[in-house]
């Protein structure tokens, strides 16, 4: 296993879209082990996406089982070729990123999502997630499309007015929230 270098903004590779994984082989699983070791090496990150280490494939790891205050979660998840299929509700939360050190800001995410993803052996799984874990998955899946949380920042003052603004955009349940 190895700890990989984490790309940081303004590295342009973070803005690139990643390609789906097609071969579910040992080399994929070795990379996933390295990605997990990298996630655990830094500050307490609940997730990491392959493009954050310059590997432009659709792979993310999320683990919301160790938050300070326990939240509903599915434990340690490796999501390969994840697809969010449904979004519902929205809420404001504070995010930071291994690729954007020393900065945190507010981002609006869907409150509940459904997603399908493959595991490291190629089997398909479906998940329903809420709250913090749903937020983590949306943050990581964004990386696969070259989108970072700083691309979705909202003003601190948006907090009290978020409902109006968000519904006007009509993006609450669109197939792709972009």
């Amino acid at each position, binding site marked *: 296993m190895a700890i990989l270098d984490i790309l940081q903004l303004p590295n342009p590779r973070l803005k690139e879209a990643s390609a789906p994984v097609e071969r579910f082989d040992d080399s994929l699983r070795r990379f996933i082990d390295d990605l997990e070791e990298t996630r655990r090496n830094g500050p*307490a*990150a609940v997730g990491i996406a392959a493009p954050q280490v310059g590997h432009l494939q659709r792979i993310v790891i999320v683990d919301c089982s160790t938050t300070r205050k326990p*939240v509903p979660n599915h434990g340690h998840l490796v999501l390969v070729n994840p697809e969010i299929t449904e979004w519902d509700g929205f809420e404001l939360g504070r995010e*930071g990123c291994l690729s954007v050190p020393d900065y945190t800001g507010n981002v609006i995410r869907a409150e509940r999502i459904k997603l399908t993803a493959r595991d490291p052996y190629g089997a398909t799984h479906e998940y329903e997630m809420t709250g*913090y874990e749903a937020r983590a998955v949306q943050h990581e899946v964004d990386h696969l499309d070259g989108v970072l*949380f700083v691309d979705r920042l909202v003003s*601190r003052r948006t907090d009290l007015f978020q409902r109006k603004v968000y519904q006007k955009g009509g993006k609450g349940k669109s197939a792709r929230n972009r």
Partner: protein
Amino acid sequence: MDWQMLTLVGADRPGIVAQVTQALYEGGCTLGETSMIRLGGNFTIMMMVSDGGKPLATLIEPVAERMQLQYHLDPIHGALHQHLVPNFQVRVVGADRAGIVSKVTGALAGLGFNILELESDVAGSAKDPLYIMTIQGFADATLEALDEALQAAKDADIEVNVSPIETLIG
């Protein structure tokens, strides 16, 4: 790097930030963290500015005069990359009564709560003003202890709630 805090206040109109920052840029200055907000129809901004060689006042004076702004300069200690991440958010909504801020922040200070961001506004109408305040900050105290102190401090017609902020790092 040595920083100064530049404060500018005046009647709001479009183009102030552009003109001020152009003057600073042309004078060789660097900007650090800044915060601008409109308060009661006034333009207000505080900016960390590093010296570009010329005295800052000589760069700001002409633009301040042109835009009818008052300015103030203070040498400051401090540096970039000193962010603290808040772990609690407090919301206050209620009838506009003298003393709300001092009661709420007094209760927080009693528990060692460090306010990192505070914004307050008066909504509603002139006849029935509604006071709204949001605070984000850091405290080692528990949610229950903060809530108890806030509920004890507030008046009956004011709603105060405190919630944890779990910052997601991904």
